[in-house]
């Protein structure tokens, strides 16, 4: 391949991956701008517009055929476009929610937006990776940005602690991932996911060890049990709107990548048992421990662990149906979780409470802030999986394929744990609506006003949640990714 040819293909690659490239470049622009004009008013707008551009671009390409770019290192179109749209959407909503929040806690700094853009870049590289090396690059780019975002509020001891904890454990997980990649490469001689299966040959043991270690890295990122320990601390310590971003976008990326690995590199069913057991543990432990939480953010952290379990059920089905269900679930989960963390962020009205806020301090808020509280009703019922909201269709989309694949026992455990989950989700609503106002915190004196843009994001999430529940055509979209073309379009 001569040089001119490779340059011309590079140009084409840059065009098809324009949102990714633009996100990275605009992140750099913000860094430079921030160096000269500290906390310029345009900074959040640059980030928001970049993410919005990416979102629109990727949505238009969801229907397009999938392909690869950069010498098969990255996937574009189809499923890749869908995952990118999730990441951009999550980032965009977060940027809108984060600005007033960070201003209110006095940590509104330009770097946040650059970090969100860089993290999105990493997530996109991870979520669309077609090669082990791209997986690692995306994984690290994403993780490092998230470590910094977690410890953003330097003055808060809890935040610093959680950032350090996240970093140390995360570094460990990355080590596992890298070791796994090395072993897989050693066994197969290739980095490309789609070539892996045919190249394993005689090195089964080495390959399997590699896959096991790789899975550890992924399961850490999606906070599956037993690699979930970091989640509650990090969620509690990090700035609330950013938790919404971390819990959704990074999960979307990691799960998308895991699905590609399972679908392209490990089509055999030998991993189903492992994934099924992990899913079971994750659902049970996440939901049961969430019952005991008194802090809203910790509760939502355990809830997000449990939701990782539900998504793993879809993966454990080991069928295109299950993968498409999991991708659909990620969309619903993004909408619900960004909304829920958004509401919690807005309810941390005096800034000082922040991560220490207990559920009981919010009692009676339902009649003070009806818009936020009733939105929370939708998010909580959505997370608990009640119809006619998207959360229900999501559960059907992951449990259904599992049942179809003969994992009825897993689905039964899953629904029972989700009945458990109803208890702690509804407890939030009990506090909001059914308890007398807490005299200690004098909610009567709440005077904060909800910023218009934030309210708009919350309402948008509610509408999306209802639409996803009533118009489930999105399932068709996610199902279309696995019609066989994904393998066929590879050169």
């Amino acid at each position, binding site marked *: 391949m001569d040089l001119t040819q490779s340059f011309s293909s590079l140009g084409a690659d840059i065009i098809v991956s324009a949102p990714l490239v633009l996100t990275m470049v605009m992140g750099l622009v913000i860094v430079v701008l921030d160096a000269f004009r500290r906390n310029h008013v345009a900074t959040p707008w640059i980030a928001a517009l970049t993410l919005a551009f990416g979102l629109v671009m990727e949505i238009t390409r969801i229907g397009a055929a999938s392909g690869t770019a950069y010498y098969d290192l990255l996937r574009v179109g189809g499923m890749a476009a869908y995952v990118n749209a999730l990441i951009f959407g999550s980032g965009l909503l977060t940027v809108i929610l984060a600005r007033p929040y960070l201003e209110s806690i006095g940590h509104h700094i330009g770097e946040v937006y650059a970090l969100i853009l860089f993290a999105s870049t990493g997530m996109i590289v991870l979520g669309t990776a077609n090669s082990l090396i791209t997986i690692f690059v995306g994984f690290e780019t994403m993780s490092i940005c998230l470590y910094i975002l977690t410890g953003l509020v330097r003055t808060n001891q809890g935040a610093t602690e959680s950032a350090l904890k996240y970093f140390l454990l995360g570094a460990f997980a990355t080590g596992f991932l890298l070791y796994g990649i090395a072993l897989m490469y050693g066994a197969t001689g290739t980095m490309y996911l789609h070539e892996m299966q045919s190249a394993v040959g005689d090195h089964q043991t080495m390959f399997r060890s590699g896959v096991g270690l790789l899975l550890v890295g992924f399961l850490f990122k999606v906070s599956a049990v037993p690699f979930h320990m970091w989640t509650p601390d990090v969620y509690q310590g990090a700035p609330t709107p950013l938790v919404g971003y971390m819990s959704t976008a990074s999960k979307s990326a990691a799960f998308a990548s895991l699905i590609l690995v399972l679908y392209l590199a490990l089509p055999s069913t030998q991993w189903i048992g492992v994934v099924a057991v992990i899913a079971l543990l994750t659902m049970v432990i996440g939901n049961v421990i969430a019952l005991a939480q008194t802090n809203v953010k910790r509760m939502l952290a355990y809830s997000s662990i449990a939701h990782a379990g539900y998504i793993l059920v879809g993966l454990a089905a080991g069928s295109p*149906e299950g993968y498409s269900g999991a991708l659909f679930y990620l969309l619903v989960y993004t909408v619900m979780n960004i909304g829920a963390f958004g509401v919690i962020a807005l309810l941390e009205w005096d800034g000082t409470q922040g991560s220490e806020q207990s559920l009981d301090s919010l009692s009676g808020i339902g*009649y003070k802030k009806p818009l936020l509280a009733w939105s929370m009703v939708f998010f909580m*019922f959505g997370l608990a999986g*009640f*119809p*006619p909201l998207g959360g*229900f269709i999501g*559960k*059907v989309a992951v*449990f*259904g394929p599992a*049942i*179809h694949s003969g994992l*009825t026992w897993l*689905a*039964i455990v899953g*629904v*029972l744990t*989700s*009945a458990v989950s*109803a*208890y702690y989700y*509804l407890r939030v*609503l*009990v506090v909001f*609506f*059914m*308890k007398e106002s807490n005299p200690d915190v004098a909610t009567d004196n709440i005077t904060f006003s909800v910023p218009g843009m934030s309210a708009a994001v919350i309402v948008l999430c509610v509408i999306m949640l209802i639409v996803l529940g009533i118009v*489930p*055509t999105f*399932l*068709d979209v996610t*199902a279309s990714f696995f019609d066989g073309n994904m393998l066929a379009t590879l050169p």
Partner: protein
Amino acid sequence: MNIPHLTSIVIFLPMVGAILTILARRTEQVKWVALVVTSVTFLASLGLYVGFDPGISTASSPQMGDVALWFPVAFDIKYFVGIDGLNLLLVLLTTLLGPIVILSSWTSIKEHQKAYYTLLLVLQTGVTGVFTSYDLFLFYVFFELTLIPMYFIIGIWGGENRIYAAFKFIIYTLVGSLLMLVALLALGFMAGDAINGGVFTTDWYKLVSYNIPVSSQGWLFLLFALAFAIKIPLFPLHTWLPDAHVQAPTGGSVILAGVLLKMGTYGLVRFCLPLFPVASQKYAMMFAVLAVIGILYAALVCRAQTDVKKLVAYSSVSHLGFVVLGIFAFNVEAMQGALIQMVNHGISTGALFLIVGMMYERRHTRLMKDYGGIAKSVPILSFFMIFAVLASAGLPGLNGFVGEFLILIGAFKSSVLGSPMLVALATTGVILAAVYLLWMVYRIFWGSLENEENASMADLNGREIGLLVPLVLLMIILGVAPNPFLEKSEPAVRDLLELIESKRAAAESESSLEFEYRYADTPEFRVPEIDEAALKAARKITGASAEETESSFGLK
């Protein structure tokens, strides 16, 4: 007379009303909007009653319904609603109770009125949807949709212990219905792979046409029946009910007893029996025994109550035991009785809860010892209460008698249950009902007026009389002339039972075929060859039916 889309209109009018109440500017407007919307819905549902023609078979499609594909291509899940003989009366009951509940809450609900009426309207949409769905998935969606408003109605406007009751209500029901969801999905895939070209389906008509393998019927049936048994509630799963009823505001209790419990019994009739005929007959005895235990146990518990609302709540467990007994008797009388008894219970227990609510509003106590002799101070209230009590106790000439009588007759001659002793035990439940209800009347209404406060109790006002009169009229009409109502449901009930029987027979012959295949080579089990011509000739000569001839040939 076929009015297109009428079912959908009846389902979604309250939802439209809910949107209107959210948009309403002033709080006073809200209850008027709710009242008007539910009244219009009731009038529209009368169109269903008039328009429904029992002469037209609903064996292939319901009447006045709508069907549209709801889910994407990969799933054959439909928006499929309509009316047939099984659900017509329950829909009418729901729409009738709608305005009555709103009127009953007129002055008793003072706080957060907007939310209350909005939730009531959403609840009505959910319940109507449950009764009219012909798609299992859609049914499930409506079934769960009813939980959310009821949870808030108990939890926000309920009594002192409301949060506990609301949780108990929702968690209990949720465990059952989520397990049903697993069964539903398994069934959908199973049927889809077998009869629908590999496409997941929950279309009721497709599902009933599919003979589910006998080996899978058992666990599927039990998961479905568990969800319904919790909802009904069948002994020993009834413990959520007294809490929910006692804590719920009057309107909530009326809806809960009047229609929500019927979703369980209706689910048994609509789904469990026709989908799993073999399993449901196999477990019929178990359910009948639990039903009879429930009838007697709840009646005895009623006798021990001091709280009048709790007494009425437990009486629901007892009365619904009769309905379950009727359902599992598998004959026309009992099934008809069960259907009409669902309506009867909604009317008479609804009325009881309404009146108890009115008493509570006046005296703020539900304990029987705080009353006594109030017939003198509130004669009109007492009249209505005693009327409702007599209907509930099954006095001949009033509605309760018709249903219980049909159920007991049917159960007595049921070949599936085949246990007259059990039915005799159930019959004592009728006597016990008279005992505890009349004892309650005695303690509250008769005797001397000892408590000063009772002497000055205000009697019913025009609004309260107005909302009780339709119920009392229905008690009389259903009691004296039940036939017009029974006629509406009879063809559907016959179709259903025939369907169950033919499916059961098919499953049996299938299993005997398996037997034949397995032992075809062993000489002991060689099947005699059938000479069709000889069979026909013999049939002609003897005039006997096919089965008899075959049996005389030694074939069966």
